[in-house]
C-alpha cells in the first residue's frame, strides 16, 4: 500500500520499476536523437547544451533538434494513452485510433484542407474536427447498445472504411503535388514540426490529466463484464463512454498535429501490459513506451536514409507489422 496523505493506492513494485526503466531509456533515446545527425554532437555536449552551459552546438541541439525530439516524445505518449483507452473499451488488443475511424476522419479533413488550397494553419484544426466528427458517428452507431465492445469496433471499422474511400476520391481528383503532400500527411511525419505542435498535444494531455488519473483507476474494472460491473456498483456504459471519449480526444489531437503515425497506439499498450504483467494495459507505462517508440522511430526516419527523410509513420509501420505477426504466433502457441 502506498499512502500520500489521504490517497491510498495498492502498491506493486513491478509497474514502478518498469516505469522508471522506461523513463531512463526515454531520456537516453532523446539524448541520442539530439546527438546524431549532421553535424554530430557528442552526448556530453548535448547534455551540457541542454543544461544551459552554453556550447557552440546550442543552435543545432536546442533550436533544431530538441523541438522535434520533444514532439516525438509527447506525441508518442499521447498515442500510448489513446491506444490504452481505446483498446480497453474495445476489449481488443488490436484496436487503435485507426481501427475506430478517428485517424481516417482526421485524414479526410486534412486531405481536403491540403488539396483545396486552404491556409496551412487550417490543416491541424480541420484534422482535429474530422477525427472528432468520425468519433461522434462511431459513438452514435455504437452507443445504442451501451457501446458494447463488438459493436464499438464494428462501427469503427465501418466508419474507417467509408472515410478511407472518401480520402481516395479526394486524392484522385486533386492536383498531383497536393496529393503527394496529403499522402505524406497520411503516413505521418514529424519533419518541420516542433514546439507549437508539441504544446498543443501536451496542453491537451495536461487538461485531460484529472480525467487520466480517474481513467487509470476506472480501467481496472474495464475487464469485467457489464453484469458483474453493475453488481459491484459501477455504471459500465457511462464508464466506457468516458474512457473512449478521453481516448478519442487524445487520438484526434495528436493525429491532427503529426498525422496518422501508425502502430504506436497499437503496440505500446500491449507491450507495456506484458512488461508489467497485468491483465490490462497500464496507462503510465504505455505512455512512456509510446514516447520511447516514437522518439526512436523518428530518429530512424531522420537517419536511416540520410539525407533523405522518411516519414516516421513508415518506421512505426515497419515495427508494427512484425509485432502483429508476433502477437498472432503467441496467441496460437498459447491455445495449442
Amino acid at each position: 500500500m502506498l499512502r500520500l496523505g489521504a490517497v491510498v493506492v495498492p502498491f506493486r513494485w513491478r509497474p514502478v520499476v518498469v516505469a522508471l526503466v522506461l523513463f531512463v531509456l526515454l531520456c537516453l533515446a532523446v539524448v541520442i536523437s539530439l546527438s546524431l545527425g549532421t553535424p554530430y554532437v557528442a552526448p556530453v555536449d548535448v547534455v551540457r547544451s541542454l543544461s544551459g552551459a552554453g556550447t557552440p552546438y546550442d543552435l543545432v541541439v536546442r533550436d533544431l533538434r530538441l523541438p522535434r525530439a520533444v514532439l516525438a516524445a509527447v506525441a508518442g505518449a499521447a498515442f500510448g494513452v489513446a491506444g490504452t483507452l481505446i483498446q480497453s473499451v474495445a476489449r481488443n488488443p488490436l484496436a487503435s485510433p485507426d481501427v475506430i475511424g478517428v485517424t481516417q476522419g482526421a485524414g479526410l479533413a486534412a486531405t481536403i484542407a491540403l488539396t483545396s488550397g486552404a491556409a496551412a494553419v487550417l490543416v491541424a484544426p480541420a484534422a482535429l474536427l474530422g477525427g472528432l466528427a468520425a468519433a461522434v458517428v462511431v459513438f452514435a452507431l455504437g452507443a445504442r447498445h451501451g457501446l458494447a465492445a463488438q459493436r464499438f469496433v464494428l462501427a469503427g471499422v465501418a466508419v474507417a472504411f467509408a472515410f478511407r474511400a472518401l480520402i481516395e476520391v479526394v486524392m484522385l481528383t486533386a492536383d498531383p503535388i497536393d496529393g503527394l503532400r496529403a499522402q505524406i500527411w497520411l503516413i505521418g511525419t514529424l519533419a518541420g514540426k516542433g514546439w507549437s505542435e508539441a504544446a498543443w498535444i501536451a496542453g491537451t494531455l495536461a487538461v485531460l490529466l484529472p480525467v487520466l488519473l480517474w481513467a487509470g483507476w476506472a480501467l481496472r474494472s474495464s475487464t469485467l463484464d457489464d453484469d458483474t460491473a453493475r453488481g459491484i456498483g459501477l455504471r459500465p456504459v457511462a464508464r466506457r463512454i468516458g474512457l473512449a471519449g478521453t481516448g478519442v480526444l487524445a487520438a484526434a489531437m495528436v493525429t491532427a498535429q503529426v498525422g496518422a503515425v501508425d502502430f504506436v497506439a497499437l503496440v505500446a499498450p500491449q507491450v507495456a501490459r506484458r512488461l508489467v504483467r497485468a491483465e490490462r494495459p497500464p496507462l503510465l507505462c504505455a505512455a512512456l513506451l509510446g514516447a520511447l517508440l516514437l522518439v526512436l522511430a523518428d530518429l530512424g526516419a531522420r537517419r536511416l536514409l540520410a539525407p533523405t527523410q522518411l516519414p516516421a509513420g513508415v518506421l512505426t509501420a515497419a515495427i508494427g507489422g512484425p509485432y502483429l505477426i508476433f502477437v498472432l504466433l503467441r496467441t496460437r502457441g498459447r491455445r495449442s
Partner: protein
Amino acid sequence: MTALLSTRDLVVGYEGRTVLDGLDLDLPADTFTVIVGPNACGKSTLLRTMARLLTPRRGAVLLDGAAIRDLPTRDVARRLGVLPQSPLVPEGITVADLVGRGRQPYQRWWRQWSAEDGRAVEEAMRLADVGALADRAVDTLSGGQRQRVWIAMTLAQDTDALLLDEPTTFLDLAHQVEVLDLLHRLRAERGRTVVAVLHDLNQAARYAGHLIAMRDGAVVAAGKPREILTADLVRDVFGLDCVVVPCPVSGAPLVVPALTQTGSTQTGSTQAGRTQTGSTQTSAVPAVTPAPAGAPVGDA
C-alpha cells in the same frame, strides 16, 4: 417474516415480449430463497431485475422498502451482492485480485484500498475456502473453484443480501453440493439473505427455506418446500408427472419423475410407475430415517 426485497406491480420485458406482467412478491429476510420454474418462465428475468441488471418497464423493486431505482448504485452494491449467470473472467487475473474487486463500492480513485478492504477480502476468501488459491490465476482454476472465487467476490462486498443466477449450472454434482453448502452456511452462520435461481428441484427443496415456483412469468406457489412442493405443483408448473417422497437423507420433499412410456418399456415396471403417477400421498413409500444432525436442510 420481514421482506428485505420486494417487487410491486413489476412489468419487465424484452423487445416486444413481456416476461413479467405485474408481479408482486416479497422475499423474506434472513432466509435462503430458491426460485424454480421451467425454462423461459421468467425466473432469471425476475432475479436480474431485482439485482437492477434489468430495468423494469413499470413497477418497482424495493430494497428495505425503498425503490432500488432511486438509490445510488454504489449504495445498493453495499447492501446487495449479485452473481450473474456466467461472468467473464478477466484474462490472467489472480484470485485475490478478483475477490478484491468486490470492494469497489467502498473505494474511490483517491482511496483505492483500506485496511478494512484487506480484512473483508481475507474473510471472504476464508468463507468461500479459496484462501489457498489466492495467488493463482482464476482462468487456470476448475469450474467449481472458479464459482467459489466469484462467490467470494460478492462476499467481499459485505452485503446483507446475495442474489445468484443459476450458481450451480455447469458444475458437476460434488461441486454443486459444495456451492449450495456454502450458501447454506452464509445464511445459517452469517444471517445473510440468499436468493438463488436453481434448476434442480430436489436441491431447491433441500436447501431452500422459502421456495418460489414460477410459470409463465407468474408465481404459482411460494412457501416452505415441505408445505408447497407436491406432485400437483410439479405437474402444474413443469407439466411433469412425478412422485414426491421424503428424501431419505434430509427428509425434504424428493421429486421422482414418473416413468414415461419409453422408460416403462425399458424397465418393465410400468404398473408401479403408473399407479403412483401424480399421487400426492407419500405414505405408500417406506418410512425414511430423519435427517442426520448438521446436514443442511431447509429452514423449518
